[in-house]
Each structure stands twice: as structure tokens, then as C-alpha cells.
């Protein structure tokens, strides 16, 4: 009975409709694959490693001044979730859900939930405008998505200042992030493009992969800043004065890399840079740090 009705309606509509296409569905639980930069993403980046970032002088000095104690001494840093641009590179699992318009069944929004610090984000698909410039910013920012075939193109504004790499290279609250999500079978590919006039000389492009993982449990995380020890007298925000950071050469020496390359910058990221990059000051015999991260699809042991 119902079927006949449908055919009736459908027939009618088909006559009046031009070909259109439904969207890819990203909903479900996903686990990140760390097949690129595993040691950076977990257990964490080396200090002073700006490789692969088209960083400007300002961003580089912020990184040089960064003291990791900041996270524990400035209590407001303790419970921050990642910015939504960094989150797709982070080390927690991801759940994506979707709102549909009850009448048209057209997708209204995707919601992402990431276990680390309960990071939540909405990507609006209904064509709504972004808020005015004088509205408040957030870790997730304000995201709108537009479909291009099987690719969702996302634009994010209103981000809070955060970092591009967890060693102090910042991403400013003026950044505009564009993303391109697509899905191939059980693989989710997320391309993140960060445009930051404040700290980057050109867009930063990073692409991550997630694998479909139904049935995983993602719990909200509870976090309360709890300063364990008071700051040393006079210290409000720990940092290294310019030219005094003793750790900047470590990464070059540990991995046998020219120091200039470690400092990052757009010019160091072109293939032709290999011709001019110069010689490392120190080259170890063989790999000694994180050489087996991800071996047998396992975690990252330190040797």
C-alpha cells in the first residue's frame, strides 16, 4: 500500500527533478592511524622541532621561548582541549554523529566528539553564516561545510589561540582553517589547511587518516585544574628569555639533521631545499630514539 504511494510521489517528483546526489556519511567511531609523525603525535614532539612548518620569525621565537612547565604552572592550561585543527592530528578516538532535518532529511550538521578533554565540535551543513568578528572564539571555532561530490569542504573561523605543534609553535585566533574530508571504504581522510597571517608565511597543509572502528567506547573526560606546587617566587609564566633556550639543538643532533632545517620555514619544505640545506653538525651511527614506534601496529616504546 505504502509502496504504491511512494511510487506515485516519486514518479511525480522525478519528472520535475534534475539529477542530484546524496552526501557521504561520516557518522560512526573512528581510530586515528599514526603512520606519519608517530613520535611527534605520541609521545610528543621534540623541543625546537619546527620541521615541516612554514613558520615566520614570530612563530619561531614563540617556540624558542616556550617552557614546557607552562602547562603545569599556568593552571588555566591544564584542562584545555586541542584546537579543532590540531585535534584531527591528536591521539584520541573520534565519534561523528549527524543531525538530519526531520522533514527533508537533509543533513543539518555533523558533530564530532573526541575523548581527549571531551572536545566537541559542530560542522554546520545548512548554509548558515559565520558569526560577526566581535563574537567570542572557542577551541573548536565555528565550522561550516559544503559538499563537492564525495568531499566535504569545511571552513572554520573564531578559533582561540592554540598551537600548531605541542612544543610551543602557536596558531593565532585570526587563523582561518579549511578542511577537506572524504571517505574511501573504511578509511577517513582529513586534509587540514591552516591559514594564519600571524605565525605562518604560507598555508600549512596536513592530512590525516582514520580507520572505521565501530563499538569503541569514548567517555567524556573530567578535568579540574589542580596546581600541585606553587610557582617559584616571582614566576607567573615560565619561559626562556631569547637566546637562552638550551634545548634547541637537541633534535638536530639526535637525528643527524642540519640545524637550519630544524628551524622550519617555507623555504625548507621544497624538494630543492635538499641541494642547499648544508651538513648536519652531528650524525649518530644509527637510530636511537623512537625507532620502533608503531611496530606490529603497536604503541610507541622509547627504544
Amino acid at each position, binding site marked *: 500500500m505504502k509502496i504504491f504511494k511512494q511510487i506515485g510521489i516519486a514518479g511525480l517528483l522525478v519528472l520535475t527533478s534534475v539529477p542530484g546526489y546524496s552526501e557521504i556519511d561520516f557518522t560512526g567511531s573512528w581510530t586515528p592511524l599514526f*603512520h606519519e609523525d608517530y613520535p611527534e603525535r605520541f609521545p610528543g614532539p621534540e623541543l625546537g622541532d619546527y620541521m615541516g612548518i612554514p613558520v615566520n620569525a614570530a612563530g619561531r621565537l614563540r617556540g624558542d621561548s616556550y617552557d614546557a612547565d607552562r602547562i603545569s604552572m599556568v593552571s588555566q592550561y591544564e584542562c584545555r582541549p586541542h584546537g579543532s585543527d590540531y585535534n584531527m592530528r591528536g591521539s584520541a578516538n573520534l565519534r561523528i554523529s549527524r543531525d538530519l532535518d526531520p522533514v527533508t532529511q537533509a543533513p543539518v550538521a555533523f558533530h564530532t566528539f573526541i575523548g581527549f578533554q571531551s572536545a566537541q565540535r559542530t560542522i554546520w551543513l545548512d548554509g548558515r553564516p559565520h558569526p560577526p568578528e566581535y563574537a567570542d572564539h572557542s577551541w573548536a571555532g565555528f565550522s561550516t561545510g559544503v559538499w563537492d561530490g564525495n568531499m566535504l569542504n569545511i571552513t572554520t573561523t573564531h578559533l582561540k589561540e592554540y598551537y600548531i605543534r605541542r612544543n610551543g609553535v602557536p596558531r593565532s585566533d585570526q587563523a582561518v582553517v579549511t578542511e577537506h574530508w572524504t571517505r574511501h571504504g573504511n578509511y577517513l581522510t582529513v586534509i587540514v589547511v591552516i591559514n594564519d597571517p600571524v605565525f605562518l608565511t604560507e598555508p600549512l597543509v596536513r592530512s590525516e587518516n582514520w580507520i572505521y572502528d565501530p563499538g569503541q567506547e569514548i567517555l567524556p573526560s573530567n578535568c579540574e585544574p589542580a596546581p600541585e606546587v606553587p610557582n617559584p617566587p616571582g614566576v607567573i609564566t615560565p619561559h626562556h628569555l631569547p637566546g637562552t633556550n638550551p634545548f634547541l639543538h637537541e633534535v638536530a643532533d639526535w637525528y643527524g639533521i642540519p640545524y637550519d632545517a630544524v628551524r622550519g620555514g617555507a623555504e625548507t619544505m621544497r624538494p630543492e631545499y635538499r641541494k642547499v640545506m648544508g651538513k648536519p653538525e652531528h650524525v649518530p651511527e644509527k637510530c636511537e630514539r623512537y625507532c620502533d614506534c608503531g611496530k606490529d601496529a603497536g604503541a610507541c616504546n622509547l627504544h
Partner: protein
Amino acid sequence: MRRILFAILIVGAVPALTFAQGGRGGGRGGPPPQGKAGAPVDLSGYWVSPIFEDYRWRMFTPLKGDAASVPINDAARKIVDAWDPAKDEAAGEQCKAYGAAGIMRVPGRLHITWQDDNTLKIETDAGTQTRLFHFTGQAPKEGEPSWQGYSAAKWEVTALPGGPAGVGLGMLPRQGTKSRTLDVVTTQLRPGYLRKNGVPYGANTTLTEYYDHWSEPSGQEWFTVTTVVTDPEYLAIPFVTTTDFKKEPDGSKFNPRPCTAR
């Protein structure tokens, strides 16, 4: 727009109508055209790969024994530890890191052209390699293994988790999404390296690639290739990476140079 969408959703749910359009979903009136004629995006031109990720593994020949991020197994670990570039050179195998499973990660530029209506050609300046993507179906039975192997390509019809694209689901043929992705499956590979420092892949490797084209707000064109290396011999799970290529106005920076083992 939503009206149309509504219509299509219903059409998708009605056998009589959708069979009439051919069961392969996605495009109407049977399978969509392949090859040059069916190209939903234009990948031809000169492209460069700026090194944003895996910088210290891609830009340099990594330290001996560094297999970080690759889900290798014990067999692979032995080969990694035994890596000796001199031996490879002596054996005339200095192109081991330039095979299909590794070449897209080698810093360099690509020149992509249509060799003919059914063959997309990718030339690399690093190692002067040539990959041919055949839109004419599966690999020949008796193929000779080579660095670049045999690549069967098709314009993806629709993304369907855990199944071939666009087939019917139960009684209802599937109304799919219009895809802009180029799917390439490469086999008949000569054993080579995923990384310059001897992280291996074996002869039974199947390389699956998805080429996705996108643009910056500025209009600057890019494509990202999602590479899935499946190698029962040396990998615990498929090795999945994404490599981003930026369009260049011309070939002035395309700089062919031979393979090197170091």
C-alpha cells in the same frame, strides 16, 4: 535543492525506477564513462610535494634502523637492521626506494599527462620513474614484476564501506554519491623500500591509492593521494599515508635526476 534531494532519496528507495537507471548507482544510464572521457577532475600538469609531514623521514635518508610510524613486523625489522646502500648499488638496485609503494613520498615533482584516452601517465623527476594508470581493467595474468608494477585505475563510483563500489544492497539498488576520486590498484611489484633506509615491502604487495583533488580558498589547486600499502610479508596492518601535491604553473622546476641508494 532540498526538494530535489528528497526526490532522489525516494527514487533510491524504489526498485522499479532505479533498475531502469542501471544498478551501478552513482551515474545514471549504466556505468559512468572511464578514462579521459570520464574524468570528473583534471589531474594533468606539473605538481610539487612540499614536505609538511614525516619531514625527517622524507627529506633526509633516515638513520639506519629508523622505522618509526611504519607498522612493520619482525621479518621487516631484520631487513631494516641489515640495510646496506653499497650492496644495493653493487646489485644495481639503487631504485629500490623509488618503486610504486615509495615513490610518492620521495620529495620531488610529478608531470601528469594522458598518454592515450585510457592511460594516465605520471612521470617523476626524482629517479625519473614512469607510472602508467590503465583504465582498461585488471592486470594481465602473466605480468613481469617491476618497480612500478601494473596499475589498474578507475574513477570511483561511490564509497561503500567494506564492499566493492556501487553494487546493489539486498533488494534495493544503491543510489550513490557522485565521486571525484581516482582509484588505483597496483600489483606485480618488484620488492622495494617504503623508505630510503631500507624499510621493505615485498613481492606480494598490493598498493591501493585514492587521488582526491581540492583547492585552497585562493584557488590554488592541490591533490592528496591516500596510499594503502598491504603487504602480508612485512607489515602487521596496511600502511596508510597521505601525500599532498601542489599544482605548479609550468615544468620549469621539473628536474629529472637518477635514483640514489643513499
